[in-house]
């Protein structure tokens, strides 16, 4: 009897994908019959793989020997080698990345490893196109190499197609196409609209130190323990020997490349003629709402933590495009900036698994800003500056989008959409989103310089609206030492340089606090509970057993007012 991890399947997301109990969202695909078996004379291949042009579909059509019921024989290593060949690569250039934590086991039990496998590691263009992962433990407490979740890039559709094999005994597996439990986990936060959202590879602990991942060779692994009894198991041993075992650092660059490709495709939707409000709103959703989340940790004993734990990392790039000059905000503007805390003597003291804005969203946002007829960087900056001290999980920012989205489903814009392209709608919809009760959150330039409303305290949003209508918002007023009046205000108006100073002062004040580590841990714990409650694809997070199940972003995701 195969070991059943159905319950943990509901929580599983190794960092790349997971099985979720929520389902029902099926990506846009073209099937004349629901996936699975169909009555009539259509074979399994025809029914399930028609129109698919990805490596897995090609394998199934040509080499798998799959029968009418979608059943064939394989295991992870065999399948990985065959997919490498399909892709035109040497199977020896395949890679296996290992993460080990308590996601698959009951609380208090030892960690158990999971794998993410790729092919074509030496081909910069192909290495991100195929992913496989065996998410289960078998009855021998070894990796189950028959149950495999996988996805591959479809050159024609320009998106990822998802598949899953289920063990049927021995080497026999049954194949499922676009399994429901995979779909939702590769989309956004639970409850958030996923219309026109592409499915993404997900690596929760994307950045160094890649908590729980094997980081060798080249790096030290962090919180990565393989139980002694597992180390000698045949499947684990076979999959983790050289040359296949690789460092999470390599997986990070692979995943980033996948994110960039998906982002580039998503951005292209703006060029479509015959404009669509829903499509264009979907282009703007990641600017306001956190579709994806990542998790950062202190690196070893060094006390180094990525700056994006406290400041939205995209702001640095947006402001470099806006041309911040001189000394303003140097510390956080440096793209490699890290927070430097005091060293710790034990791992328990480290800040670990702190939720931050998903890199896939950041990459997408920057793609949209850079694109012709994309999003003006000043507009993106204004969004980021609303409740900016909440770099992730801002109910305010997300509800601005969701409420407008709801409204525009019934209140049609007076535009000849047919004569427009989606990119024509971008500035129009941004104005719609950033207008509250007739009050615009967009400031005119002054002396050719961009200006912004800097909302330091998200709970004061209504007060900001009132102050704008009364024309009583104070100026940032930053002196030559970089000290700003805005530092002590709930909101203000500032230039690009003012913003840079205000943010840097905030970072400095965090770091100057004698209880900085406790402060960050408290913030981390709060975010962790939000992540657990709102994102089914969250990873295993130590110390999160106390978190409740109610998502504090439910109202924001649903378009209900959250503005104080």
């Amino acid at each position: 009897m195969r070991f059943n991890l159905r319950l943990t399947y509901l929580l599983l997301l190794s960092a790349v994908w997971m099985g979720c109990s929520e389902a029902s969202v099926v990506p846009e695909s073209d099937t004349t019959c629901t996936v699975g078996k169909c009555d009539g004379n259509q074979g399994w291949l025809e029914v399930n793989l028609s129109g698919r042009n990805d490596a897995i579909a090609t394998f199934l059509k040509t080499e798998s020997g799959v029968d009418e019921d979608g059943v064939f024989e394989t295991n992870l290593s065999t399948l990985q080698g065959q997919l490498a060949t399909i892709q035109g690569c040497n199977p020896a250039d395949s890679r296996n990345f290992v993460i080990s934590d308590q996601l698959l086991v009951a609380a208090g039990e030892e960690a158990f490893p999971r794998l993410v496998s790729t092919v074509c590691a030496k081909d910069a263009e192909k290495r991100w196109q195929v992913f496989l992962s065996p998410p289960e433990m078998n009855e021998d407490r070894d990796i189950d190499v028959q149950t495999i979740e996988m996805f591959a890039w479809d050159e024609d559709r320009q998106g990822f197609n998802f598949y899953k094999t289920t063990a049927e005994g021995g080497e026999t597996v049954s194949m499922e196409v676009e399994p429901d439990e995979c779909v939702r986990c590769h989309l956004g936060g639970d409850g958030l609209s996923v219309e026109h959202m592409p499915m993404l590879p997900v690596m929760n602990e994307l950045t160094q130190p890649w908590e729980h991942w094997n980081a060798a060779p080249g790096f030290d692994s962090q919180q990565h323990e393989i139980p002694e009894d597992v180390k000698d198991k045949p499947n684990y041993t076979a999959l983790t020997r050289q040359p296949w075992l690789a460092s999470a650092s390599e997986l990070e660059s692979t995943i980033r490349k996948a994110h960039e490709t998906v982002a580039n495709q998503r951005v292209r939707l703006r060029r479509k003629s015959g404009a669509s409000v829903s499509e264009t709103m979907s282009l703007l959703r990641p600017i306001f709402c956190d579709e994806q989340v990542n998790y950062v940790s202190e690196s070893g004993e060094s006390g180094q933590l990525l700056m994006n734990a406290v400041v939205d990392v995209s702001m640095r790039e947006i402001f470099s495009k806006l041309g911040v000059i001189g000394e303003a905000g140097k510390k956080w503007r440096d793209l490699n900036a890290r927070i430097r805390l005091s060293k710790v003597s034990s791992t328990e003291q480290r800040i670990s698994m702190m939720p931050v804005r998903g890199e896939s969203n950041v990459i997408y946002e920057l793609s949209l800003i850079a694109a012709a007829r994309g999003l003006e960087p000043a507009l993106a900056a204004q969004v980021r500056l609303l409740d900016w001290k909440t770099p992730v999980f801002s109910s305010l920012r997300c509800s601005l989008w969701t409420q407008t989205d709801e409204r525009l489903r019934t209140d049609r814009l007076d535009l000849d959409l047919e004569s427009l392209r989606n990119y024509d709608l971008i500035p129009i919809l941004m104005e719609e989103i950033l207008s509250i009760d007739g009050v615009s959150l967009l400031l005119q330039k002054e002396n050719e310089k961009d200006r912004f409303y800097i909302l330091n305290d998200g709970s004061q949003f209504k007060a900001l609206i009132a102050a704008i209508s009364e024309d009583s918002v104070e100026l940032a007023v930053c002196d030559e030492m970089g000290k700003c009046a805005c530092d002590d205000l709930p909101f203000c108006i500032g230039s690009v340089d003012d913003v840079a100073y205000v943010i840097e002062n905030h970072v400095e004040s965090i770091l100057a606090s004698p209880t900085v580590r406790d402060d960050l841990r408290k913030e981390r714990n709060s975010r962790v509970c939000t992540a657990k409650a709102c994102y089914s694809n969250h990873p295993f997070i130590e110390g999160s057993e106390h978190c409740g199940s109610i998502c504090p972003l439910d109202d924001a995701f649903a378009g209900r007012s959250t503005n104080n």
Partner: protein
Amino acid sequence: MKHCIAFVFLFACVMTTAACDKDGSDDGQVSNQNNIVGKGDVPTGDWIGLCEEREADTTATGKPRFLSNAIRWPAADVEGVTADELGDDRGQEYAEYFVITKVPNQGGTAFEEQSVVLGHPSTKLDIQLNDEQKFFLEDEEEKGSVVGQCIFTSWHSDVSGPLPCEVDGTCPNILGQTVDEKLFRMMILINSNRASSDLVEECSRQVSANTYKTGDSTDETDVRHRDFMRGCGIANDLFQTHWRSSDSQICSAAMRFSECGCSVGGDKSITLGSAIIPSLRAQEEDGGISYRGFPLGTWSDASELPVGCKYVDIGKELDGKASQTIVSCDISAGTLLKRSEDPKEFCRQQYGEDVVVYVPIPESSLECDPPANGQYAGTCSDTPWVVSRDEQ
């Protein structure tokens, strides 16, 4: 900002003077166009804070900086080294980097015939793109086009050409840019054979002359009690370059070498600097260049590179080996589109952390005999130049 310029200029004068005083010549300086000193943004602040940042880098997860057979650091500049309206200070770590890229024509219908160089000390940083050009790059990105290359070079600024490949006419070109010393030799004065050798010598001489601040070897709370901090402090006291990865690490290793009575084959007349970095004169006496610059590799292997990068083949040096001093890494069309205001920074961020500068240490020829009365001799290991953590 001004004091940054002042001290960098002063440092350059010191280095140049030291180099000149060594043998009365200024190898390579005449043929170097635009002797760039570097100006603008470099880290400033309390030396202890900056040295502790560098020390933390050596203890960050993975990436050991000190090995028994090499000292190494990333080609990417440390935080705080930036480009600003006064100039571009990047390229401080005995490695410089810049971009060669194709650019679309104004109409966005095709690439221009001639590629452009961006972020080189002799060129501008950015490229302005109109909408047509942006649409063109977006379409190229969908095809998976690689349109440019990040170039990392560790070819010492005082090592003249020609390259071995120039001798036999086999030098490659990168997107139409000929690989030769005009573009590919480092231009910043301090990134030189002489400067690096002097750094080793000066740091170890502080120990032999007992002129450095040793702190209290019995007090673990004394910041100079820690080997790395003591060495980094020397770099600060001598050159104010403690904030660099390269200088702080080289100085620490050189200091420990001397504190532990190490020598080359027991011959104390052979300087460590010359053993690690063969001087230009010594190389010329041997018949030509065999040490063009510090070899580039990656963390997992000194002769491998991150995915997307490759060595530029400039031929074999006098010793029959490739110098591994020029590396090129892919830039996609989408990247050029997104990072057009400073594609060099993309190179730093994407590749610079994992293109690693190696300073090979001739481990087998070094012998150490810690002096009996050495203040820190009691902590000397067999490989005392491995500072702060165990070798991997």
